């Protein structure tokens, strides 16, 4: 058995003095797809943000390691350069910074961290064009400001496009499915599926089972009260869909 890519053990996290994660355990190995499901307020987004290094979260206990390194000691950009990608639930609009500029800067930051030279212009262009085609995005999007004036669906699609260009080792997608119509959901799922590989892992944070019709997870976890209370295969998601969170929560409590 290969060693875990991500190992979270007994993680406790507070925001503004209120404990949101109350001892969370999660192990993700290379090539695996994990779905984290749970009701609103269960701590799903907190988990995604803490793993990406957002400020304002106080780790009060437990640990998280990535490739054997203390993840929590790394700055957000160090995590990104080490291959972690966060797909935002609410992607930020950054007028005046074009998508290609952001991607080139991000790629080169990664390359510099690995001691590689900057990507050549032609290779870069080819890469972003290929990936834009994969995400069925018009090339004009590349020159536009990051998420500037994008619809909700376009923003999510842009997140997956960025992920496709940056080719992370661990992608954490925070409610990427929310606010998507069925066509956009298929495009997003197709983007994720095309990136699945034996080396790349995904953590899909989602409220609904719908996404999992298109991206088949290896594991489904139910997050409630800041902890993972049940883990199963994709049939657990169907169970949640049929019975709702209440039933699963009640069963776990009894």
């Amino acid at each position, binding site marked *: 058995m290969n060693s875990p890519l991500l190992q979270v053990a007994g993680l406790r996290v507070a925001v503004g003095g209120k404990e949101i994660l109350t001892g969370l355990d999660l192990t993700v190995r290379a090539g695996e797809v994990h779905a984290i499901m749970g009701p609103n307020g269960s701590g799903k987004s907190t988990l995604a943000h803490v793993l990406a290094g957002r400020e304002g979260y106080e780790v009060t206990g437990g640990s998280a390691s990535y490739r054997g390194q203390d993840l929590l000691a790394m700055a*957000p950009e160090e*995590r990104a350069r080490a291959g972690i990608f966060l797909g935002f639930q609410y*992607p*930020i609009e*950054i007028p005046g910074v074009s998508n290609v500029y952001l991607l080139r800067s991000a790629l080169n*930051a990664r390359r510099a961290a690995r001691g590689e030279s900057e990507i050549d212009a032609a290779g870069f262009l080819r890469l972003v064009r290929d990936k834009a085609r994969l995400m069925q995005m018009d090339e004009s999007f590349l020159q536009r400001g990051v998420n500037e004036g994008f619809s909700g669906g376009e923003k999510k699609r842009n997140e997956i496009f960025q992920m496709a260009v940056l080719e992370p080792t661990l992608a954490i997608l925070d409610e990427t499915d929310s606010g998507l119509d069925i066509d956009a959901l298929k495009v997003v799922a197709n983007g994720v599926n095309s990136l699945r590989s034996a080396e790349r892992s995904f953590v899909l944070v989602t409220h609904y089972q719908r996404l999992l019709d298109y991206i088949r997870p290896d594991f489904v976890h139910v997050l409630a009260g800041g902890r993972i209370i049940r883990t199963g295969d994709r049939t657990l998601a169907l169970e949640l869909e049929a019975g709702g969170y209440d039933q699963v929560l009640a069963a776990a409590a009894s």
Partner: protein
Amino acid sequence: MLPERPWRTAASLARDGAGLPDWPAEWRASALARLDEAGMPDGSDEEWRYTSLTAWGQRWSDYLAAAGQPAAITLPAVPSMQPGSVARPAAIHVQVVNGALLTQTGATPPGLFVGSLRQLPPELRGRAAELLGKSAGLPPEQLVDLNSALVSDVILIGTDAGTSFDGLPVHIHLQGSGSPAFSHPRILVDVARSSRLTLTIEHSGADGMLANAVTQAWIGHGAHLDLVRVQSLPDDGMLTDTSHIDLAAAASARITSVDLGGLLSRQSMTVVLAGAGSSATVDGLFLADDRRHIDNRTLLEHRAPGTTSRESFRGLADGHGRGIFNGKIIVMPGAEGSNAALSNRNLLLAATAEIDTKPELEIYVDDVKCSHGATTGQLDANALFYLRSRGLDPAAARQVLTAAFLREALGHIALPELRERLEARLQEKLGGGVRHP
């Protein structure tokens, strides 16, 4: 210390070297008389609330002391105009040193005049006199009077009715040389009926410079002026810059003002929408980093029905810099159906820096649409995290966001090369010099 009535001392020094035709003499005399009355602006004047001219006056005093030596007031010779040898120049460049035209490159095609009042072709005398008359007819302002009293040259730019020079921008480079140098550049622009002109005015110079520039432009019926003003003084440069732009019916102006340098820079821009249906777009950018003091006072006056203005200034203050935006829109009686929008957004990047913003609306008619607003803040923490989550380090993320914020103000510059040059300058300045707490 400045002598009593320093403009008189300065005028007596400046007169001999000026070489201007006789006929603006009266113009200068009346300016001196008004200065005797009004003196220099000070803090008691609301419009000068944010900027003190003390340091400016000190430099003037240094200049007067040095100007007693004849060498210091020698003006550059006016070159002979280059004949139209270049078949189709891409641009006209005019170099103005210490207020006097020094060189001009690029031949002017028929319908366009660019040159010095000192070398005016006889057939343009009537038009120049008319323009000078318009200038003299404007409401008096102390710094304009000071410029009129001490002016050593007048740069004239004029188009003939119905001509278009969109593809032939006129670049005026105002420079100060010598230390100390006090220059009084004066530019008069006449964009005749139904013509189009693209003009850039760049203020620069050497250490120790002091300049009091005045630009006045009249845009005729249905005509258009594209104007870019760039202030890129040396770090200790000082500039007061007054401009007046008057629009006739159906005329339009697109103005971009950029302040990147200097120690003390104060501009006062008045745009008068005098004719029905005229419109003006004003974008501004100022970078008050280091110890810079940059004061922008703008006035947009709607005097006729159906006039439109949109003004947007973006500013940044860092280090011990101070940036000021004092923008006013007045909608006068008779300007029914007008439309005005004014916005000022600022980034304050250090606790030791300061931003003062004062957007004002004065409306004297009912049937108008006006909006105004100002914000001053820090970089958006969410955007910073977003960029860091993509691998950019904090310094790079801040630089990217700061440059993007300011760059928006350059979006209306119609000359791609100039826009790119300014963007590069901005990037360079932010990359090299802007500190963050």
